[in-house]
Every structure is written in C-alpha cells, then in structure tokens.
C-alpha cells in the first residue's frame, strides 16, 4: 500500500512537472477524448485499440505534434462495454473536458448511444471499430474509419465466385446478435446480386454448442460452400462439427468479420482449413509502411502482434491529426469540415471519407484463407 501511494505521488509530481514545462513553452497539448472498453470481458478489443492509438500518438508527437508544434494528447474513458457507460463517458468528455473530438466507442451498440449525444453538441466522433449498418446515419458529426461489413463481405464473396466458381451455397447465421445478424443481411443482398443460389438459410444462437441438425440438413443439400456469419466461438464449433458429420473438405466456409480471428485456427485446427474471410488489414501485408508498423508495435508491446483493431486505430489517429492541422485550430466545427477532405495512405492502404462519412476506398480489402490453422493471403 505504501509503495503504491509513493508511486502515485511520483506520477503526480512528474505529471505536474510536465504540465508546468508545457506551459512555459506556451505549447499546450491538444487533448482529444477516447471511449474504449478497457475493463471487462470485451476489453481485448478496447486495449488493442488503445495500443494502436498510443503508438500513433508517440509517432505524431515525435514528429512535432500538430498545429506547428503542439503535442497531441488523448483522455481515455472506459465504457466497460455498456452502452450507458459509453453515453456517460461521451457526456463527460464533451461537457467537462471540452474535447474537440472523440475517438471510439468500441462497439456499434455503444456508438448508437454515444453518437447522438456528440452529434447534438456538434462534436465530431470517429469510430474505429464500428462496422454495423446505420452508424454514420446518426448525424453529420459521426464518422468511421472502419470498413463496414457492407464493403468487405461483397469483396469476399466475389473473390470466392471468381476463384472457386461457387454456384450453390448454404447460409448459416447467429440470429440473436446484432453484429452477426447485420452481417447476414449484407451476405443475403450480396449473394442475390452475384447470382449465387442460396439452398437454405439456417440460424443458431450465439451460445449454442450443438449445430448437428442444421449441418445435417446442409450436408444433404450438397452445396459448393457454406456462408457463415458467427462470432468466433460459435464459428469454430460449427466448422469442427461440419467435418465430424462428414461434410467434405472441398465444401469450404466463407465467413464474415466474426471469423477473422486467429482464435478460429487455434480452436478448430485442421477443420478450419480453407475458410475464406475478408479483412480490411492483414498482419502479413508486405508493404514497407505496414511492416514498419508491425515491428514498432512488437517492440513497444513486448512481442505482441497487432490485430486489425490496432491497425485501424493507428491509421485513424494520423487521419485525425491531419484534419486538425488542416483545420488550423482545435475547433470541432473546423475539424469536422477538414475531416471529410482528408486523404491519407497508411497501413490499411489509401483512405478518404465518402460523402456519408464512411471509408470511400475498399481497395485495401484483402481476402485471407486459412491454411494449417493460420490465415494467409489468398494467392
């Protein structure tokens, strides 16, 4: 206890010192707000995002900060994954801390709560990991840098059709989760557009563990592939049971963003081989900017590899910093007008906002295939 309080004192002294120093140079930091899940069961997403931001923050400040030498700073607020807490955090950041811009929140549900509040107070809010439909329809101050499912899934399905000539598929989706359901809606529309025949559509609950009824039916229909929208735990179970029931390996899975996780290979092992997913980013993308990012991330965080959430956060902070520079002042209205015009090429590829404040460019989307329990780029 005593050791801890001494450490707190030391931290306070250091903080005080740095604040005085900043004032002496008359270069006060530009403080942004961020709402992420830093505690609780979904904190791995929020912490990955925080690491991405912190890495970008260090890079930006090393290069001289924003607005001709003012350092950038981020005030983090924890939402613990609850929409009420995200809402309270947004109100605190806007009303008390008076931040000119908010990064986050982590989940789409949280954005549906916090977005309208930021929009009401005319403070831009930039989601880096919110992929559901209708996020930016909240209002003109709501942006996102994460590619919505509606942009990624069509690319995956189109690639599958072109490469493997699939004609008839079975569809499975989790119908009790907003994320998997909205991905299914995109899959359905996209399959129709590509003229791929859907033999059957089966549903399950996100906590189910037995999928044999649905898979037996699918097996009898003999599809070319199975299109699957699920969270990674359910997806792993489905792929394992599909192989156990004797669905041949040439019937591969095509997944939504929920399957885009290394955990799929860890749990399902060989059963997951051949699974196709679309991703806005891939750790093994060979370009120099991406490799530099991956190495810097590994150095800073003791060998941990970044995931797509960290990569999206990393790029987002550069995009926001660029907008602040273009705006010429840490002013919400000016930043909002500047954001929409930003053009930036980062680790995810070329980026700009569309008129509806979504990412305009989908050329950064890569299709990955699972081989030997690991995702690699589809050749």
């Amino acid at each position, binding site marked *: 206890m005593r050791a801890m309080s001494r450490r707190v004192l030391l931290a306070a002294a250091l903080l005080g010192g740095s604040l005085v120093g900043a004032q002496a140079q008359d270069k006060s930091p530009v403080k942004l707000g961020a709402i992420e899940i830093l505690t609780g069961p979904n904190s791995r997403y929020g912490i990955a995002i925080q690491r991405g931001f912190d890495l970008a923050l260090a890079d930006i400040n090393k290069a001289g900060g924003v607005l001709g030498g003012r350092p950038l700073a981020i005030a983090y607020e924890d939402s613990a994954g609850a929409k009420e807490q995200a809402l309270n955090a947004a109100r605190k950041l*806007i009303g008390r801390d008076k931040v000119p811009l908010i990064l986050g929140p982590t989940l789409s549900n949280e954005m549906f709560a916090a977005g309208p509040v930021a929009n009401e107070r005319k403070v831009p809010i930039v989601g880096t990991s919110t992929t559901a439909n*209708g996020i930016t329809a909240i209002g003109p101050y709501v942006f996102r840098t994460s590619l919505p499912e509606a942009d990624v899934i069509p690319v995956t399905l189109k690639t599958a059709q072109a490469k493997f000539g699939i004609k008839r598929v079975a569809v499975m989706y989790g119908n009790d989760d*907003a994320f998997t359901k909205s991905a299914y809606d995109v899959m359905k529309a996209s399959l129709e557009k590509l003229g791929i025949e859907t033999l059957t559509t089966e549903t399950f609950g996100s906590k189910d563990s037995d999928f044999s009824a649905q898979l037996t039916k699918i097996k009898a229909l003999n599809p070319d592939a199975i299109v699957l929208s699920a969270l990674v735990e359910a997806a792993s179970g489905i792929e394992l049971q599909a192989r156990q029931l004797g669905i041949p390996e040439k019937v591969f899975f095509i997944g939504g963003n929920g399957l885009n996780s290394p955990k799929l290979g860890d749990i399902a092992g060989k059963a997951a081989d051949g699974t196709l997913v679309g991703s806005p980013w891939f750790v093994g993308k060979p370009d120099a900017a991406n490799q530099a990012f991956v190495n810097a991330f590994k150095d800073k965080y003791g060998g941990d590899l970044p995931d797509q959430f960290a990569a999206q956060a990393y790029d987002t902070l550069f995009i926001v910093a660029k907008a602040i520079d273009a705006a010429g002042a840490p002013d919400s209205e000016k930043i909002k007008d500047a954001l929409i015009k930003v053009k930036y090429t980062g680790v995810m590829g070329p980026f700009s906002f569309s008129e509806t404040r979504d990412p305009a460019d989908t050329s950064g989307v890569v299709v990955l295939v699972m081989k030997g329990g690991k995702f690699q780029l589809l050749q």
Partner: protein
Amino acid sequence: MWETLDDFYWTYQSLIHAVGVNGILALSVYVVLAVGQLSLGQAAFMGVGAYTGALLTVKFGVPFGVAMVGAALVPALLALVVGGPTLRLTGVYLAIATIGLGEITRIVFLNWDYAGGALGLSSIPERGGVAAIYGTLAVLLVGLTLVARSRVGRAMEAMREDEAAAGVMGVNLPRYRLVALVVSSAMAGVAGCLSAHVSSFIGPNEYGFEAAVTILSYALLGGIGSPLAPVLGSTILTLLPEVLRPLADFRLMVNGLIIVLAVLFMPRGILPWRIARTG
C-alpha cells in the same frame, strides 16, 4: 455561473435519468419482495414496457402519455396471465419460473423482425425526460409509503414475516400476491418506457438475466423495510461506477468490493428500519 450549471447538468444528464429510472425499478421489485415473493421477472416486464412504449411512439406516433399508459398496461396484462399459474409457486421455484419468463420474452424480441429483431429499435424520439421520470418516482414513493402505513401495508408485512400466520388471520394471500405482481410489473413497464425515451436505442439483450439480478440487488443493498430503502440502494449502485471513474483500472474492482462489504456488514440493507404506523 448559469452556463457552468447548464454544462454540469448536460454532462450528467444520462446519469440523472438512470438514477430516476432505476429508482422506479427498485420500487417495482420492492412491491413483490414486500409480500415475501422473489421475482426475477422485473427486467422482462421492463423490456415489455420499453418495447410497447417505443413501438407506440416510433411506429404509430402516439403522444407520450398514451405510450406510458400502454407501457403500464401491457406488462400488467402479461403479469395477470402468467401470475395465475406461477403464483402457486413460492420462494426459489417462483424465481426460476420468472427467469424462464425473462428468457422467453428475450427470445420473442430477438425473433420479432417488426421490432428490429437482434438489431433492436433505434431513433426513438426523446420524450418525457427528467420531469416525467422524477414525477413518476415521487408519486410512486409517496403512494407506496402511504400504502406501507395502511392496513394493506400491515397485511403485506405479515405475509412477508409468516405466511401461514397471515393466512390464518384472514389475509387473502393469493389476491395480495397477484395484485403485488401486477402492480410491480406495471411499474417496471413504465420505467422501461421512460428509459427507452431518453436513450434513443433499445435492444433485446438489455432486459435479460443480468438486468434482472441488478434490479434485485437494488433492494438487497437498500433493504425492504420502507419504500425509500430500495431507492437509496439503486441510487448508490447507479452512481458508484461513475463516482469511481477516476480510479480507472481499479474502478470495477472497488465497485464490487464496496457492494460485498455492504452486504456482509448490513445484511438487512442500508436502511433496515420499518415505517412507523400512524392509522
């Protein structure tokens, strides 16, 4: 000065709403606990009320007052229907039956595409607000305090302490139980409607088992000696996570610790005292 005050109010607006709504929920679970029953269905009734109210304003554009009445009536009707068979059960069996009810309503909302299914209902218009929430809370608090001091209140207390003895003394047990359940579900429904109209978005997973336990914990922390006690409990449990925000990573741990200590050292709640009888 005025501007600072206005900013302060704006910043904590959601929290002020939540304190009021949770106060009403605490009162709703108090009504059931006061007759010695254990219900874990309050979250489900709240959800039914929230969906009823939100659907009425979003899809039919009815005035907020009408939506509130609907949000009280529909869960009350549901309670009347399920009350018949389930109130033959007592104690832990009733708790299990009401958990089942909660799970069924959750699955109905999930699969009901008209009400948004898994995606929930969004862009609910902002109605009611602080005045409606605290007005309702005040009316219920005064009303229930008056009831607690009356003949009915004495009968409820007798049921809670010893059901058999209360029955022998002429208390109509089944009727009291049913009325308590119906009234409490109407209150939970109203709370759901009020909260839906200040948070702009509701989803089917908000009214599940976790929410039911949270509502029950308001009364456990506060006590059920008087209507004020559960409201105090809900206020503390709602404010704690925000008051502890400066603790950052330790926030939820300290939050849990405080609750555990309170329950260990104050097993009858923070406000265990009963209301003195006047009449």
